[in-house]
């Protein structure tokens, strides 16, 4: 009874031609589409645009590549502290000259490039963005081909690459996102005198990742595992889950990642040329183009 009368009162008010009703109505009519648009637009923004992630040890040339690709010119850079995104589009020459051009209209030649810091302390930025953007189309792991000729540089690159590949593998195994993510290992700085050619970068990295994988498996467990109140997931298969590539295989090869839908390509290039000569990045563009229209 009470309720009914309240309801009736409300209805009467709602249909009365008073000022307040008009104001409320106008507000609702105006705001609802706005809010809806805002919400929907936000969502579509983050899901639709294909994203490529730049990752790799510090000083490899990620930010340089980022500025070149988004902006057309190579900026001077220093160590990055924060990730950075920007949209960029394939140069028309790329889509023309290669075999996948058929469907590359201007609209879908656009993509988002995400640059991440490579400093040891800041890798969580990169590793979390590995799992977050759902439209991750590919990963560009930039290495300094000259640095990997030294033991220390090689180990650093390999450890990072190992971790990255392992995250991708786990992501694939968990099956939440079965979309495979291809990886381009961009062997940068081919202009530098001491740099190794792409083929050698590949074999060195494979060998080193194999070693990293081995010692990681023998190393101490992480905190959190097997401790009371720990946050670690108690997978029975923990050991196998943390093993990169083919379980039990002695040698590591990038080909082993195909089982997990991860296609690894090692392609050489350079952002700077000798002297004033321009760099050579066409093959990297091609790789992006190929995976964009996939």
């Amino acid at each position, binding site marked *: 009874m009470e309720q009914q009368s309240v309801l009736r009162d409300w209805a009467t008010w709602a249909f009365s031609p008073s000022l307040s009703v008009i104001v409320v109505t106008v507000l609702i009519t105006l705001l609802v589409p706005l809010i809806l648009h805002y919400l929907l637009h936000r969502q579509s923004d983050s899901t639709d645009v294909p994203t490529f992630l730049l990752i790799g040890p510090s*000083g490899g040339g990620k930010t340089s590549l980022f500025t070149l690709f988004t902006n057309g010119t190579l900026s001077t850079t220093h160590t990055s502290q924060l990730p950075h995104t920007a949209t960029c589009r394939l140069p028309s020459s790329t889509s023309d000259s290669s075999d996948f051009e058929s469907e590359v209209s201007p609209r879908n030649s656009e993509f988002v490039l995400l640059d991440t810091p490579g400093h040891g302390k800041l890798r969580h930025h990169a590793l979390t963005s590995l799992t977050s953007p759902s439209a991750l189309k590919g990963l560009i792991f930039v290495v300094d081909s000259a640095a990997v000729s030294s033991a220390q540089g090689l180990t650093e690159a390999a450890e990072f690459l190992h971790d990255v590949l392992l995250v991708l593998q786990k992501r694939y195994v968990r099956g939440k996102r079965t979309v495979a993510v291809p990886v381009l290992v961009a062997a940068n700085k081919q202009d530098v005198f001491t740099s190794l050619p792409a083929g050698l970068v590949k074999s060195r990295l494979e060998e080193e990742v194999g070693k990293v994988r081995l010692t990681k498996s023998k190393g101490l467990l992480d905190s959190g595992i097997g401790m009371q109140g720990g946050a670690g997931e108690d997978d029975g298969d923990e050991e196998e889950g943390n093993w990169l590539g083919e379980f039990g295989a002695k040698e590591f090869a990038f080909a082993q990642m195909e089982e997990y839908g991860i296609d690894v390509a090692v392609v050489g290039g350079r952002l700077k040329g000798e002297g004033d000569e321009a760099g050579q990045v066409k093959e990297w563009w091609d790789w992006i183009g190929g995976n964009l229209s996939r």
Partner: protein
Amino acid sequence: MLDAFEIITTSGIVLWRKHYTPVSSNVINSLINDVFIEERGGQKAGGQDGGTNPPYKKDKYTLRWTTGKDLGLIFVAVYQSLLHLSWADSLLTAVRALFIKQFAPELKNPNVTAIDARQFNQTFDALVRRLDTGSTRRPSEPDSDVGPPELTPPSSTVSAGEDEPPPLPVSASATFKKPAIPERQKEDVAVIDDTTSADATPVPTPDTSRPGTPAGQPVSGVLVAKGGPGKFSRRARKANSSMLSNSAPASSGDESPARKPKGGKTSVKQKRRWDTDGGIVEGDDEVLDYSASGPTSAPGEDDRDFDLTDVNADEMGSRTRKGEFVLKDLDDEINAILSSQSTSRASKTDPSAESSGLLSSASSKISGLFRNVVGGKTLSKADLQQPLQQMQTHLLEKNVAREAAERLCTSVETDLLDQKTASFTSIDKTIHESMSKALTRILTPTSSLDLLRNINNTITGPTSRPYVISIVGVNGVGKSTNLSKIAYFLLQNNFRVLVVAADTFRSGAVEQLRVHVRNLSELSQREQVGTVELFEKGYGKDAATVARDAVTYAGTGEGKRFDVVLIDTAGRRHNDTRLMSSLTKFGQLANPDKIFMVGEALVGTDSVAQARNFAKEFVDTKGQLRNNGVGMDGFIISKCDTVGDMVGTLVSMVHATGIPVVFLGVGQHYGDLRGLNVGWAVDKLMR
């Protein structure tokens, strides 16, 4: 004499820079690494308030910096440590204000990856001229009287120049170098010379040709401001002529009367003269200066042509007016910026409050409330204070030392101040996220420790030798226990381990180790893994000598019988100076590959002092702290199983020293040793 000035984004892109001499990019990279990322040595850059960040020294350079936090910008001035550039700070402040003002629209766009900041060259040059004048004069007055050799070379150059009758144009400074000038001045002149030839920049000339105006600070500012354009054009023309003809007798003649007069009045007069001389000259100079100041980039050259043709067309008048306007404007602005930074800060907050009227202030309040829920709120200091206080208390409850908690909160505050909260994110959540990031960064080691690989690399190959690890710490934290755990882990990996009892002090220490070694030996025999042995020389011997003998024994003897040497040391109170200082000798004699310090998860505030005091003992023979200046290689935090969520000690110790936590002791068994999972620790701390 400035060597370089750069404006960098936090994502690592150089937006604008000017190099007077070639400066390796490593110099600025290490500033970023040490100060911003690893936050070594004191405070992180203090956001908007700018002011006095401690200078950073690298190689022969001193770097001063300031940040434009809300836009993610870093402003860096680089100069040689020999010099004393008191005006660097003012320059930074002024450049920050002007750059942000000039490029605000572009900078606000988060997607921007580069901005065309070439126009800034002009502003910057004018700024340098202004400020350089102001500061060199100030020391130059007392300096020329007292004349100690360490004084800033620019000023001493000025006084030297005043003694010599002939004027000193830049091109002549090479010959000027020959007369007996003290070492430092010579260097400075050389630098100037260098610059001009490389860059054809007019900027260095102020150093040699500046009139020493005697005046109080604020007054002088005004005077110089008026004199600005006149000097500007002269100098620019000189730069031009020296650029075009490579020798500048005409301009040097020009310069001599300019130097002699010392009153502010003359400079005003000169200014007038140039004014009445007509806009053409000024306009011309404007353009030339513009071209000359863009030496670093090839595009600058194109610009010059473009601009000249521009002027040859009928734009000259308007250009001149514009140029004049820019400069006058600039002067006023610099005065405003420098005289009261606080004013500029106030004006920043003003518009929102001022643009009021009752209605809009009410509506802004409502939108503030709304934004707190929906996000998009710009965070002010007041917004942050309360939740940050709570966050600090929370950290203290987790056993984080007060010092570290305060620093973390400050760092979060600078991180968030004037930032907008993300959509549908409350302030608390934003702070929570920012704190998690700060903790992650502090706990994550710069390079991960892969002990097994390190050992393998050391014990194989032509230069193979045993790998030496030593364990230090205060009494009773579990040094021997953790050493045995490491030994067990190494045995599992088939290494041959020599355990060394270098605790020759506390009775029973050797026996305790002997028991451990016996247990480990039995275990490893049963499991058919590595072998372990004890090396001991009883009590009373010098620990450092015992350790060295053990290393020699392990590496030679019957065919290099050991892969790893684990040295146990005597526990010592960190404030026992005598025992502590013996660690230095120990570190040098035994020369371990890794020195780990064991700390207890249980201790509270003492942990910071412990960590610091131990770290500072490990200097090598050259007087440098080991391991890149941090002293030790890692912490082992014992008894982590007893503290639950209160793992704050990890943070305190890392924060105090910059040394990473490498292992955690989590129980009573040999197998209870863990690597640190940063995510796990942060999760516990933020829970």
